[in-house]
């Protein structure tokens, strides 16, 4: 149980919120609403998977919103060129991975702090996209683009399966593959990682590239739910994603964190806003309430780990 302790406070907050909803707004639990919520939070979840890797290695990527927009537009443009939706999706993932690789190379090999690299990428690529598209949406997509040419239910099913597969495989791989453990090792103690033969620069590079690819995947899965693609997608997405990951118990200093925590973080942030709507709160106070919930969650966590640390000190002194 110890291993999941940092996730407990988030799980507790979710359960508390759900209990309140069960009494005051049982309509929240309709199948339809739940499936809508899952689909609406899918992009944030998939990007958050990658962000978890990045933050566990002790870095940060604030360019994901921009990457998301670029990949969305690219997927649409490729589809219009005649590629089938799956091929267009692949292309979007490759472009995402390339953008991530640029960030990763600058962070891992040129050793520029990740916040600077991804800040520059966020601003520069966003403006480049604006310039190229001039704000125009991608329209007149081929008929087989929306819903991948199948039905809405089938497509939603596929989306759900892909997301579930990603969560499970990354969650499992992070826990059970040496490749996954090397992410933790790099974030926990980079020097010690090198001593046991882990190529920590390659690990850092890879997590950024993977995050880019996952962002591309999220962009595709989001785009196929509509029949046109806006060019200004993903503004502010980085904040949502980072918040979800951090609320899910991943340490911003690296080394600690988990996919199940991130999943819980995404769920908590994903249900706050609709829950407040169901409970009849005005939209005007939502952002303030969200900010306060984040501050409380991390504050609570900090106080707890402080207590733990002083207990650890005590153990050390008396040993």
């Amino acid at each position, binding site marked *: 149980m110890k291993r999941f302790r940092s996730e407990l406070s988030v799980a507790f907050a979710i359960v508390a919120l759900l209990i309140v909803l069960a009494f005051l707004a049982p*309509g929240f639990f309709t199948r*339809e*609403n739940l499936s*809508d919520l899952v689909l*609406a939070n899918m992009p944030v979840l998939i990007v958050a998977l990658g962000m978890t890797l990045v933050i566990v290695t002790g870095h940060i990527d604030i360019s994901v919103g921009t990457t998301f927009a670029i990949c969305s537009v690219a997927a649409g443009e490729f589809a219009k060129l005649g590629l089938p939706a799956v091929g267009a999706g692949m292309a979007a993932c490759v472009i995402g991975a390339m953008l991530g690789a*640029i960030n990763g*190379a*600058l962070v891992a*090999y040129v*050793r*520029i*702090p990740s*916040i*600077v690299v991804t*800040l*520059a*990428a966020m*601003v*520069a690529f966003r*403006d*480049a996209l*604006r*310039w*190229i598209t*001039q*704000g125009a*949406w991608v*329209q007149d997509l081929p008929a087989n683009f929306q819903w991948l040419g199948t039905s*809405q239910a089938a497509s939603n099913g596929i989306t759900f399966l892909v997301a579930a597969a990603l969560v499970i495989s990354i969650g499992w791989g992070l826990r059970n593959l040496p490749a996954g453990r090397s992410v933790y090792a790099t974030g926990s103690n980079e020097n010690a990682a090198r001593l046991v033969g882990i*190529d920590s620069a*390659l690990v850092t*590079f890879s997590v950024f590239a993977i995050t880019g690819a996952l962002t591309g995947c999220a962009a595709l899965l*989001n785009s196929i*739910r*509509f029949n*046109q693609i*806006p060019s*200004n*997608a993903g*503004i502010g997405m980085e904040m949502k994603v*980072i*918040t979800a990951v*951090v609320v899910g118990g991943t340490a*911003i200093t690296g080394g600690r964190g988990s996919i199940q925590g991130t999943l819980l973080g995404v769920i908590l942030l994903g249900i706050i806003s*609709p829950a407040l709507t169901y409970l009849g709160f005005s*939209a*005007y*106070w939502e*952002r*303030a309430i*969200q*900010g*306060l919930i*984040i*501050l409380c969650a*991390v*504050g609570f966590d*900090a*106080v707890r780990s*402080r207590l733990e640390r002083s207990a650890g000190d005590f153990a050390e002194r008396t040993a």
Partner: protein
Amino acid sequence: MPNALHKNWRERWFPNGEWMVLLALIAEIGIFSSVAQNFFTTANFVEVIRLSVELGLLALALTPVIITGGIDLSVGSMMGLSAVVFGALVMDWHWPVAAAAFATLLIGCAGGALNGMLIAEFKIPALIVTLGSFSAFRGIAEGITHGAVNYSGFPKSFLFLGQGYLLGVPAQLPVLLIAMIGYGLLLHRSVIGRGLYAIGLAGNGARWAGIAVGRRIGLVYFLSGFAASVAAIIYVAHLGQAKSDAGTGYELDAITAVVLGGASVAGGRGTILGTVLGLFSISILQNGLHLAALPSELTGILTGTVLVLTIAIDRMRARGRTLIQEEAIEMKNSQVAILCGAILAGALITAGANVWLVRSLKTMPSSASGGHTAVIAVMPKAKGDPYFVSCRTGAEEAARELGVELIWDGPTGLDAAKQNEIVESWITRGVDAIAVAVENQAGISTVLRKARQRGIHVLTWDADAEPDAREYFLNQATPEGIGNALTDEAARLLGGKGDFAIITGALSAANQNQWIAFIKKRAQEKYPGLNMVTIRPSDDDRDKAFSETQTILKVHPTVKLIMAISAPAVPGAGEAMRQSGRKDVDVIGLSLPGICKPYIHDGVVQTIFLWNTKNLGYLTVYAGAMLSQNKIPAGATSIQAGRLGSLEINGSQIILGAPLLIDKRNIDKLDF
């Protein structure tokens, strides 16, 4: 003491490679002096300084924060909160300006102290704390004002602080100078500043030298909250308005300026001189691009590139120096391959973007040579918005037809301060006519009056400024007309009775808030049976409008009509409706026919309202050209506007026509 023992001047003044930023700055000035009109003038530099004050205050405040190894993402949000508090105290509570300013500064200090306490006392990483307060401060500001209240009408004596001149320099310049000197002394001369560097370099180890680490760290966040509220007051005086969106995105610009100036995000390195150089290299870049009529998107691209390049070069040099001492970083072939691949990928993307660009440039009109070509500068509210993109087509058509040069530029997102900045640069450049789609009436009027004094013809379009600040307003539809048309249509579809919900843009969007006011008024006066259940924001994001609609449908099952009043919100609401399969709920709204076409054909969206945006763009340039050739006599009651024929002039308004009702019958005839 012999001179040789001192460090040489370069290391003394530029310890972190700031000279590279200085070189970049000189290069910028050199390039823009030759390509941009009226760039190298005193008047222009004075304006650049005025526009740099708010950002400069934040960047100065962030310098010590970053030197201690921290970060403060909440400064922009604190500006929003402070602006709103200040506005409320002066306009609602009728406090004297001085007292209100004092109270506002206290709010800034309190917010900064909160950050500082959580970081220094509870040892929570600064990134997380300020990420939380980033949301919380902005959220409180929106909560207080419901996002909508826009305080304006401040006393003239107060506005002087942001708009007036003191001995020929902008009145807010002394504030920036005091802040520069103050922070310079604090960091480089004072006992406290030395401690901040020690904290950045040695972290907690600074305690061993008797430095009160917690208190010093608390202090820098406290000061940054304070500086943000000072910046907010100047911002209010500068724009003449206080709204909850003040300072949005400023935190990233400020961090960019500091980091560009050579500060290390790991702490311990950075100078005020570097920050000032970084600040001006950003603001001169923006100003120069406007004056050279280059698209403002280049700002982000160039800033990002310069940021990464300066640090990368610095890193490479540093590595060369320490290679002997450190264990050499041995690069394996695979790593070199990856690095090369990444660089290649970057180059490919850039090249691809250029090809795309060249293609898009080809369609742009080339300005006619020989003789004086009238230059008409037209500004949308936001460049990327599909609505304004479609206006642009008409504007370009008119420019081709009349053989005038068209400058089309504006903020990339809704940003009143940026609009002022661009108008200022157009005045400096000396264009013949300026036409602005006004984001904020009070804010832009001063600068438009200034343009008129300089003999530039001024028009407003889409949304009006104060009447004496422009010659004509190209009126496509009044907020009242839009509000009434939407309400009437809703009443018609609902049979005069029933619940409806509104999906707006951002909660703080001025236009939408005006429309909502008229919708409410009309419903109250004329349709007592209509009941507005809720207003939800879409932040001009199609996907957010989509999920908000889904939620509304479930939470309020009685809602029979969704009124989406932001262009991307209508397709979002339409898609949600289509996927829900609810046939009993209607969608109406204000949007572009192009992006709504599929939904109107499906019958998911019943009606949208809009004027002919292409014609609006056409008329804007046409009227601008006629004004600049003095072809509109005073007291005229109509003008001949090219293919639009004769249009009525009502007072100082040129009427485009009533809002267009777009539905199944006519949508295929519209091409925008």
